[in-house]
């Protein structure tokens, strides 16, 4: 167990380092931050002074060396825009995204299991048809479109929900719903197909031959076996969310990491971009490890392998 974790963490660190190098150099291909920061009318001299002051005129590898040196002493640099430590900015943003993503993922997963299992129980039935089509629809709807439509309908016309912002539970309803709609659709599909396979497994027959109740067959015997592919997809979806529920954050004005990342990329605030990617990568790699551990918890056979 400890060895497995150690190896996974080691691999994750390698990935992090690779990511770091890639991000650093790719970011520097996108132009000089000074151009964007300085007023349009600044003179060439002002621009030069700014560039020199921030070291943007050094070759990229020297900048990288400087960055690595600072990083090793725990300094992720300072935001050019916000004039604060980049890490501090990122750490303020990430809890919002994590909570948003966690709520959406949790609800999507629970909903998908209930709907998907029910659909798989009678494949081809009315419930299955309706569930399949509507899950496909929800998996293929543009989310920003849904978000804005939802605001117009639920906030402006019906006045049931606040338009946006971070606050009490009712502020969570629309962002979470918009965010979960796609993973939900996808997960319903995965749960359904996984359950279809599992429900035709031999041990399900054994359970029926034992006289086990159908509810228990579906939710006790089959579900746990069917969860592995579901957890895989859910993990990927969660990772994608951690990487930025950009659209939801942008529209609903949630100060999350996705919004921060896109803003910093557009503004070429490199220190923030790097810190944000590093922190989200850390979250994503952790999710991967948690997913692996979940496999082992769900399936005793996996505990044997490594």
């Amino acid at each position: 167990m400890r060895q497995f974790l150690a190896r996974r963490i080691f691999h994750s660190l390698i990935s992090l380092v690779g990511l770091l190098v890639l991000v650093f150099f790719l970011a520097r291909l996108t132009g000089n931050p000074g151009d964007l920061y300085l007023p349009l009318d600044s003179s060439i001299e002002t621009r030069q002074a700014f560039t020199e002051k921030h070291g943007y005129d050094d070759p990229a590898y020297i900048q990288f060396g400087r960055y690595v040196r600072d990083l090793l002493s725990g300094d992720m640099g300072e935001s050019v825009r916000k004039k604060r430590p980049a890490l501090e900015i990122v750490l303020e943003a990430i809890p919002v995204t994590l909570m948003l993503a966690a709520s959406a993922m949790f609800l999507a997963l629970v909903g998908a299991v209930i709907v998907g299992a029910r659909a798989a129980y009678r494949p081809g039935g009315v419930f299955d048809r309706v569930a399949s089509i509507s899950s496909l629809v929800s998996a293929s709807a543009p989310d920003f479109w849904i978000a804005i439509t939802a605001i117009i309908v639920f906030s402006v016309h019906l006045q049931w929900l606040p338009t946006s912002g971070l606050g009490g539970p009712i502020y969570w309803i629309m962002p979470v719903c918009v965010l979960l709609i796609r993973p939900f659709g996808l997960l319903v599909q995965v749960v359904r197909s996984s359950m279809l396979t599992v429900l035709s497994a031999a041990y399900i027959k054994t359970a029926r031959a034992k006289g086990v109740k159908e509810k228990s067959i579906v939710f006790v015997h089959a579900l746990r076996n069917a969860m592995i592919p579901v957890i895989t997809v859910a993990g990927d979806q969660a990772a994608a969310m951690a990487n930025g529920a950009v659209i939801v954050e942008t529209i609903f004005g949630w100060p999350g990491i996705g919004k921060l990342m896109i803003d910093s990329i557009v503004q070429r605030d490199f220190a923030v971009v790097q810190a944000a990617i590093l922190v989200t990568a850390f979250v994503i790699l952790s999710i991967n490890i948690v997913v692996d551990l979940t496999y082992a918890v769900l399936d005793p056979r996996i505990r044997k392998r490594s």
Partner: protein
Amino acid sequence: MNKMKNIVGATLLALPLSLVFAEGKIVTVVLSEEPDVIDPCEASRSNIGRVVKQNIAETLIEIDPTDGSITPRLATEWEQVDELTWNFTLREGVMFHDGAEFNAETAVTAINRALNPTQDCEIRLKFFGNINVMPKAIDATTLEIKTDTPQPILPTLMGTMVIASPNTQAEKGTMNPVGTGPYQFVKWDAGQEIVLERFDGYWGDQPEAEGARFIWRTESAVRSAMVKTGEADIAPNIALQDATDENTDFSYFNSETSRLRIDMTQAPLDDLRIRKAMNYAIDRDALIGSLFSEDVVPMTQIVVPSINGHNTDLTPWPYDPAKAKELIAAAKADGVPVDNEIVVLGRIGMYPNATEVAEAMAAMLAEVGLNVKLSMIEVAEWIDIFTKPYAEDRGPVLQASQHDNNNGDAVFSVFFKYACEGPQSTMCDEEVDKGITAASAAVGDERREIWQQVFKRLHEEIVPDVQMFHMVGFSRVNPRINFTPSISTNSEVQIGQVTFK
């Protein structure tokens, strides 16, 4: 999964169970983006200015954006001592929020801080980049400012200078702005809101609003919806298509002027006939009320009428495609390579429907027979192309751009755009350069007249732009308050002016 449940549960419990509606005498302003910082020395950036300028920290002099005239604020009067020196008499009995007293000393400290080169304050970079300013306290209420070059409009320049408390750290940006304004800073929940409350020790009349909240949403549709639902009071900047309610939505000239900059060095754009033809090709009347608001005005020069130097005698280009085709034919006959591909370069997200506008412009230019290609680019690349040094092989480009001058004088525009040395200029005309030099040194009517001559020459004889419009902005205001957005709403939202119905 259990863990997740706990996190969600804990979060839901931790948050107050209420809808935050704009109520009481607190004014909620919804901005288009979160300010990066709220340092007074950055107050020239629009979203920072809306929070800080004249709310938290004030300027010595206030510029009236409607006509460019200047009025006293922290300075009561001012005079030019000699070519390089101005004296300002400061208001007495003014206190900073932290208890410090406002006087010539503290004004000097504030000016020095804003102009400190170790900081990249935008006020310095934007307005004082090439000027060496030496402030000095003569006595408690007299501030002397010397400059290394003659600055005939120094009081206007000082209208951009926001005075921060002397206790503000000098070398670094501050997260806790302290000034002399009617509101003092309470807190900034990063990502969520900035809260101000009324300052009891304010030198002027106590404003009606007890405090202010600034929040931000990226989507214009959301901002306007928030005012509609009562979640916000003022949305200073909404898109044309969201400004649909006459009762709440205000339109006003926002000092922006929209044009296509012609790269005059590249064939066929170096030919005057082609540049004129392009201006004849644009059906401005069709654009007004469709892609642009009904309130926009066709431009004749880069500055809006309220700016000192605007020439009202100039007439907009008419729509005359026949004439345009004629001019192109004539140029072609003279061997001008009119078939060269001309790129209309748009900037993604410059204003809400910038893309459609660029598409429309390109389509109209193509209509008169030019070989036009549209290309939409990202802001960083756009800036790179817009400013000197220019790439050698750039080819004929019409670059969509928008210029904003709300600082009262044409000097803030003309040099940059049209002088031989101007950092965004593609032209070099001796007469225009002479005019710029002369106007910069002049004051009063003389200054205005020289600018007007320059604009006339640019408009009629040089034609460096495909002229579009003086733009209007839209703000939505909650009917529960009285507040009239204006051109100044572009750079400040004076909460002190808000009254409640």
